[in-house]
């Protein structure tokens, strides 16, 4: 009887842990339909954004949404080497432009990431060091999101090629969770449910 009890407890604990591990899998994105069980629309919207937050707070995104004028690099988010700076247009200083090294596409023999639009997000779009709630409120604010309506974020996150690089970052870099299409679907669902933000 006692053995059966311990087996039952162990099985229960294992299933709980497995379920927990499933909810915090940082490599995948849960689809919007998974949140339909949340009756309150605002809570559902905030939960969807929290899922999207796996992407927004990923190094592939934050490294080029830095708090300062110097991008970060790598999965560790270390300061960019060589010591480049934002420059007046976000494409680097005149003496060392982003495009000098980051060309049209990744160059795997040199481990160099690339995209024809490679540049830093503007200062007002900095995400580094911010909570998900702060990022959410910022991303809805036209003064801090490049003058976009929230509906335009569906296209920006879902189809923009520079954003899309985050899912095909090349050798030695962990891709952003899920796929770009899945991230776009989350943005769309978030917008359609009222674009609510997590409290923190």
């Amino acid at each position: 009887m006692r053995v059966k009890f311990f087996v039952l407890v162990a099985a229960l604990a294992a299933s709980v842990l497995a379920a927990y591990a499933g909810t915090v899998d940082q490599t995948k994105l849960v689809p919007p339909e998974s949140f339909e069980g949340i009756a309150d629309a605002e809570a559902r919207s905030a939960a969807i954004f929290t899922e999207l937050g796996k992407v927004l707070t990923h190094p592939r995104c934050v490294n080029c949404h830095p708090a300062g004028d110097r991008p970060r690099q790598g999965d560790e988010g270390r300061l960019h080497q060589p010591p480049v700076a934002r420059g007046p247009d976000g494409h680097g200083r005149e003496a060392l432009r982003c495009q000098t090294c980051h060309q049209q596409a990744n160059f795997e023999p040199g481990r160099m990431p690339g995209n024809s639009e490679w540049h830093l997000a503007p200062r007002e779009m900095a995400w580094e060091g911010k909570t998900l709630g702060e990022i959410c409120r910022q991303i809805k604010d036209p003064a801090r999101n490049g003058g976009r309506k929230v509906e335009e974020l569906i296209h920006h996150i879902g189809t923009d090629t520079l954003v899309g690089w985050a899912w095909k970052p090349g050798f030695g870099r962990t891709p952003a969770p899920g796929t770009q299409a899945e991230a776009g679907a989350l943005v769309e669902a978030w917008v359609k449910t009222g674009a609510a933000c997590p409290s923190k």
Partner: protein
Amino acid sequence: MTTLALTINGRAYGPTEVRDELSMNDFLREYLGLTGTKFGCGAAQCLSCAIIVDNPDGTSTTSPTCVVAAANFNGKAIRTVEGHARGNELSALQKAFIEHFAFQCGYCTAGFLNEGQVLLERLARKPVARVDLETTIAEALDGHLCRCTGYVKYHEAVRDVILADPKRYLV
């Protein structure tokens, strides 16, 4: 494979077929024997491999060669360290590097020379105030690493060339 044709130090090369994954550094050093362009970190972090790209609009910029595909230079005009001197006559910047004993091992010198030359050409187009000169030089040379710590000497050499012709480089 990609067809590559470009101009290097005023001389036409190609067209020739190159592998898509061939770096420009390997093309210069291994295919053409232009070994003045060095291979340093291999990650565009030391810029000892930098060469000059002459843009169609008359401006010039530097580009690393270790992390950039040779194919990306198709149709472009570039200069390497071998292209600075005219016969036996060194350029003003090369002379200044020697006068300042700016380099020791010399591994970074080609990159610094090309970057300094691009700066001179930029200042000839867009002169800066004397008060901004030190920052301008520092920013221009910023990405280049020198393990012998010749930074100050390189900086002083570039500054000397500029101050020797202030009407050309300064407002």
